[in-house]
């Protein structure tokens, strides 16, 4: 059968792919141009960066963060954003999983000539994920990992004194999160998860949070993978050894099924999510600062501190499920220095592995 030609260069070159957003055939070169241009347009339109800022690119070695680092470096030079970019990686301490992807990040550091900082759960929290799994089993381990990772990026970003964190969340991820928050009735997260930037002046939540942005918010996973493939970018793909993550997995599959039937579904879900307005009368958690570790939290004692307390006391279930009673007790007798918990004094002792 005759292969289609690119709609963008008027048939000068044969098409290589179908863009999912528009179902139009594109050649490689026009696809690269369009992909990069659209991300640039998002950055400009949403005012994600200001000249002179230092931006930490959250780098896992996976496709999304590798493409993000590559594209940000390229656009920063092409359009003179005036940004200083650094790579920030979190090592959860999962043998056989993170080891390999961190090797990829180290190669990316060389390839893109960007500074790299790796922070480990072990140094941040006193526990690696391998140790946590040993202590808690495989049922709730993802709770620990998720809560710790979120804070770890903030802590790393503070260490590096960056202005902003950029994460590789793509359109598929965001559509997935919107649906997940709807299914869980989590209105606070539903409202926040569609924002392209959180923690900046326009975000009304309080607390000393470093702003985060998602420059790939409107980029389809298919395009990210094809971009990485055609550009021969070096990335690592794996599935976490500990996480079947059944709930998100179902939604992921559902979204991929929808995409096959109608590729624009993904961008349409994001559009729907963005247009939702939460009723004024809805009770929303107020963002504040954890009394123990002073990182942002919606409770007086943050979830990370609660989980660590549980681990250190040998009752790992502590931070899982109903935690109200224990949080109050912790507030009363704040004995944070007695163990290896996160606390104000521990924060100073944190060390960072710097790979330059």
């Amino acid at each position, binding site marked *: 059968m005759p292969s289609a030609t690119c709609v963008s260069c008027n048939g000068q070159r044969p098409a290589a792919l179908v863009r999912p957003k528009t179902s139009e055939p594109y050649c490689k070169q026009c696809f690269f141009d369009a992909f990069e241009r659209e991300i640039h347009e998002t950055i400009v339109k949403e005012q994600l960066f200001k000249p002179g800022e230092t931006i930490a690119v959250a780098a896992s070695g996976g496709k999304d963060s590798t493409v993000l680092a590559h594209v940000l470096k390229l656009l920063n030079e092409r359009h003179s954003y005036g940004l200083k970019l650094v790579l920030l990686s979190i090592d959860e301490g999962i043998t056989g999983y993170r080891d390999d992807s961190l090797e990829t990040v180290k190669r990316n550091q060389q390839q893109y000539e960007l500074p790299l900082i790796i922070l480990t759960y072990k140094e941040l929290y006193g526990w690696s994920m391998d140790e946590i799994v040993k202590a808690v089993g495989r049922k709730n381990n993802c709770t620990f990992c998720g809560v710790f990772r979120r804070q770890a990026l903030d802590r790393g970003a503070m260490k590096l004194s960056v202005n902003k964190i950029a994460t590789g969340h793509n359109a598929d991820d965001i559509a997935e999160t919107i649906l997940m928050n709807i299914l869980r009735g989590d209105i606070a997260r539903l409202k926040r998860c569609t924002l392209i930037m959180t923690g900046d002046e326009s975000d009304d939540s309080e607390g000393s949070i470093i702003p985060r942005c998602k420059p790939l918010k409107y980029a389809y996973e298919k395009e990210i993978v094809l971009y990485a493939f055609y550009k021969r970018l070096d990335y690592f*793909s794996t599935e976490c050894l500990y996480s079947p993550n059944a709930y998100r997995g179902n939604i992921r599959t559902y979204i*991929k*099924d929808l995409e096959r039937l109608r590729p624009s579904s993904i961008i349409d879900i994001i559009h729907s999510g963005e247009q939702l307005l939460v009723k004024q009368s809805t009770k929303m958690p107020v963002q504040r600062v954890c009394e123990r570790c002073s990182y942002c939290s919606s409770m007086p004692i943050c979830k990370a501190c609660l989980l660590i307390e549980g681990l250190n006391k040998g009752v790992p279930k502590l931070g899982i499920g109903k935690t109200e009673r224990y949080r109050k007790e912790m507030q009363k007798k704040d004995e944070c220095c007695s163990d290896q918990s996160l606390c104000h004094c521990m924060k100073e002792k944190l060390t960072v592995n710097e790979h330059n």
Partner: protein
Amino acid sequence: MHLTLEFAGGAELLFGKQKLQTIDLPDNNTSWTIRTLLIWIRENLLRERPELFIQGDSVRPGILVLVNDTDWELLDGLNYQLKENDNILFVSTLHGG
């Protein structure tokens, strides 16, 4: 028919971590398509959890297929007629980093 198969983006994990395989399909007097190739792969190469690679008569949604670097959506998908020495790449978008 001689073909090169590539598995990437995590899809290789279902094929004993082998990223590149060259295969020879038997001459059975009918032309081979991606559809019939998938059946052959399931019977001959797929090591574990076939449902993570094949669903119904197609690849699982989220796995991209490229024929000689071209998106199979441009090539009639499952009905694409394979040619001698084609390179078929299966790349998963479902795996994380």
